[in-house]
């Protein structure tokens, strides 16, 4: 089958994607084998689709993709949303389960104040309208890890609506071309998490652990304003940073604290929206964009081959690198939403409407929470750019690694070197070493003080740039010595005696008349030989740029 030219534009990016590999993998032949139906646990790397940029051919119609996201973030709280059992990632099975979580008769939900505050803070950070009154509902479906047979959520009237999330994507090949996009936040709602199922296919049974059942979740629904995997991934990343800055969720995808479902459809620009599919099981930051792009490409392939898109739920198979339909015998789900009869409406107040004489523990003041909001990542980045004159992409890089910003600020505090120098050393040298050995900032053998001291030596011109790199490498490998000690030991200090250097250069020029002639003839590279000779004569203790300057001066006189 001829591979059609599949063209799909990410608006503003002007990228055209050519058809991926084989029409054999797309079209009707989508694998429907059973996949890992657990919510986490993905292993090997998926195949990289071949993407090339090409100009649109005449007569071919463009495709536009529409991506909406439903993001579930586990609230960082001590206890669960409606019960007093503990929230913890790793604990013996079923040890963090109360009678309510196990859905034993006679138990009732009691709302956790911290979870409400977390929802309000997140809503404020995303510029949402906070509903002064919100309601709880029951969403019914049967699954072994949902003991009650329903999930308490907020379907009719959620706690926050109509916000927006700004994120940045890079257009073009380099990080430096970044643009800001916005995606609408449809709503934020509080809901319960379900327990965990471990499928034992060998013995044909499922093992249930209810430790996670009842943990508070924030569901953030993003409007279908995104058009490709990269935008979706960038939006999720920014939301992650915001949640972490607020402290409302640790939002760690690897630990299941942040889960993403995507709603994807394609259509020709100007025509109505296409049928959408829901892709679940997107629990890895690495594969989020790939999975979404795969599904977009699959839909385009299917439609260009004359097929139809089914409104179905699909799952991303990390091993195969493609989306597969989930077993869905019942067709469209009917959740039979009903009001949660055991919970009155949730009422929130602001400074203007606080009831007098009310118990402060029992009322939530939105204005008070707004005042106490921590600094958002966007603001932190703007400050960095303003204060230190760094490029926007540097501010992104600093916030992108846990602990890196703090490290940077500690170095700045202790060093007299210029901020631009510090930025460069932290983002290039320091981060480079970390990445090479796959270490977190907290595991770094080099402390901010050590780097600050090193940069001071460099700033004072006590050592050369290459010597500094040597010392840094040495600091990384062995602890216990300060940069100054290392410099002294290895005799890396720059020559401070200008007169001695002049002498050395002059004698070198006299000793190599041939090279001098070469330079005078106009060969620019010849001088490097002289520089090298002088450097060796000084045992590497002279700055090459200074040597060059001296030589050039002497040659021209």
């Amino acid at each position, binding site marked *: 089958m001829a591979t059609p030219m599949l063209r799909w534009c990410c608006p503003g990016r002007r990228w055209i994607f050519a058809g991926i590999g084989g029409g054999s993998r797309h079209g009707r032949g989508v694998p429907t084998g059973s996949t890992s139906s657990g919510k986490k646990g993905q292993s090997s790397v998926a195949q990289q689709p071949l993407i090339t940029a090409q100009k649109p051919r005449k007569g071919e119609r463009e495709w536009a993709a529409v991506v909406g996201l439903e993001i579930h973030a586990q609230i960082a*709280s*001590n*206890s669960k949303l409606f*019960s*007093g*059992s*503990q929230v913890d990632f790793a604990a*013996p*099975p*079923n*040890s*963090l*389960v*109360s*009678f*309510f979580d*196990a859905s*034993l008769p006679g138990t009732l939900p*009691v*709302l*956790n*104040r*911290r*979870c*409400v505050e977390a929802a309000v803070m997140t809503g404020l950070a995303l510029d949402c309208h906070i509903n002064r009154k919100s*309601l709880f509902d029951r969403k*019914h479906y*049967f699954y*072994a890890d949902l003991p009650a047979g329903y999930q308490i959520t907020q379907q*009719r009237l959620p706690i926050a609506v109509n916000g927006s999330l700004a994120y940045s994507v890079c257009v073009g090949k380099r990080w430096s071309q970044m643009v800001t996009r916005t995606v609408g936040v449809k709503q934020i709602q509080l809901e319960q998490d379900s327990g965990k*199922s*471990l*499928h*034992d296919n060998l013995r*044909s*049974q*499922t*093992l*249930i*652990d*209810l430790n996670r059942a009842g943990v508070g979740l924030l569901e953030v629904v993003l409007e279908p304003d995104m058009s490709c995997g990269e935008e979706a991934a960038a939006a999720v990343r920014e939301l992650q940073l915001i949640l972490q800055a607020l402290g409302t969720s640790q939002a760690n995808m690897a630990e299941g604290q942040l889960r993403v479902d995507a709603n994807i459809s394609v259509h020709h620009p100007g025509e109505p929206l296409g049928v959408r599919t829901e892709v679940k099981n997107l629990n890895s930051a690495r594969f989020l964009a790939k999975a979404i792009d795969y599904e977009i490409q699959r839909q385009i392939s299917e439609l260009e081959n004359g097929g139809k898109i089914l409104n179905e739920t699909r799952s991303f198979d990390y091993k195969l690198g493609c989306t597969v339909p989930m*077993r869905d*015998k*019942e067709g469209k789900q*009917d959740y*039979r*939403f*009903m*009001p*949660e*009869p*055991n*919970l*009155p*409406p*949730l*009422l929130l107040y602001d400074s203007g409407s606080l009831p007098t004489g009310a118990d402060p*523990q*029992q009322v*939530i003041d939105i204005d008070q929470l707004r005042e106490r909001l921590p600094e958002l990542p966007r603001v932190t980045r703007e400050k960095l750019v303003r204060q230190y004159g760094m490029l926007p992409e540097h501010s992104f890089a600093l916030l992108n690694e846990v602990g890196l910003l703090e490290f940077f600020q500690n170095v700045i505090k202790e060093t007299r070197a210029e901020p631009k120098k510090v930025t460069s050393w932290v983002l290039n040298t320091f981060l480079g070493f970390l990445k090479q050995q796959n270490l977190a900032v907290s595991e770094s053998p080099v402390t901010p003080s050590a780097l600050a001291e090193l940069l001071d030596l460099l700033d004072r011109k006590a050592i050369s740039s290459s010597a500094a790199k040597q010392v840094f490498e040495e600091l990384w490998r062995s602890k216990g010595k300060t940069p100054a000690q290392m410099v002294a030991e290895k005799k890396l200090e720059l020559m401070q005696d200008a007169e001695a250097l002049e002498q050395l250069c002059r004698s070198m020029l006299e000793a190599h008349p041939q090279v001098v002639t070469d330079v005078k003839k106009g060969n620019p590279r010849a001088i490097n030989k002289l520089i090298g000779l002088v450097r060796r004569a000084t045992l590497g203790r002279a700055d090459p740029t200074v040597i060059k300057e001296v030589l050039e001066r002497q040659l021209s006189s």
Partner: protein
Amino acid sequence: MWARAVWLGLRASAGGRRGFPSKAAHQGSRRVTAELIEHLERLALVDFGSQEAVARLEKAIAFADRLRAVDTDGVEPMESVLEDRCLYLRSDNVVEGNCAEELLQNSHRVVEEYFVAPPGNISWPKLDEKEPFSHR
């Protein structure tokens, strides 16, 4: 017995159903189709084992339909009898849990400290696969 439970349930929830569109409420006739029965049975895991059960269901719907005689224009629906109550907010402290042994005693089968459930979801035979009893 299940059918009776459903009937009682329908009576109780008739008042609160207004906010949610439901197929039954919008059906003009009192007939309950075989498809709807199958749908309800799968959703609620009840068993309309006999024709009498279906007849009782239809009578219950007719009974609830009498609510339509009331003019509710401009009246806000009541979501809960608790709507005037204060929603109590609990402090975020750990006060429960650590009773795995007790909870696991409720389970028919247990493996180490896990509850054991059948694989996948609760399956349901299709309409034509079931033992037929004649719907009207």
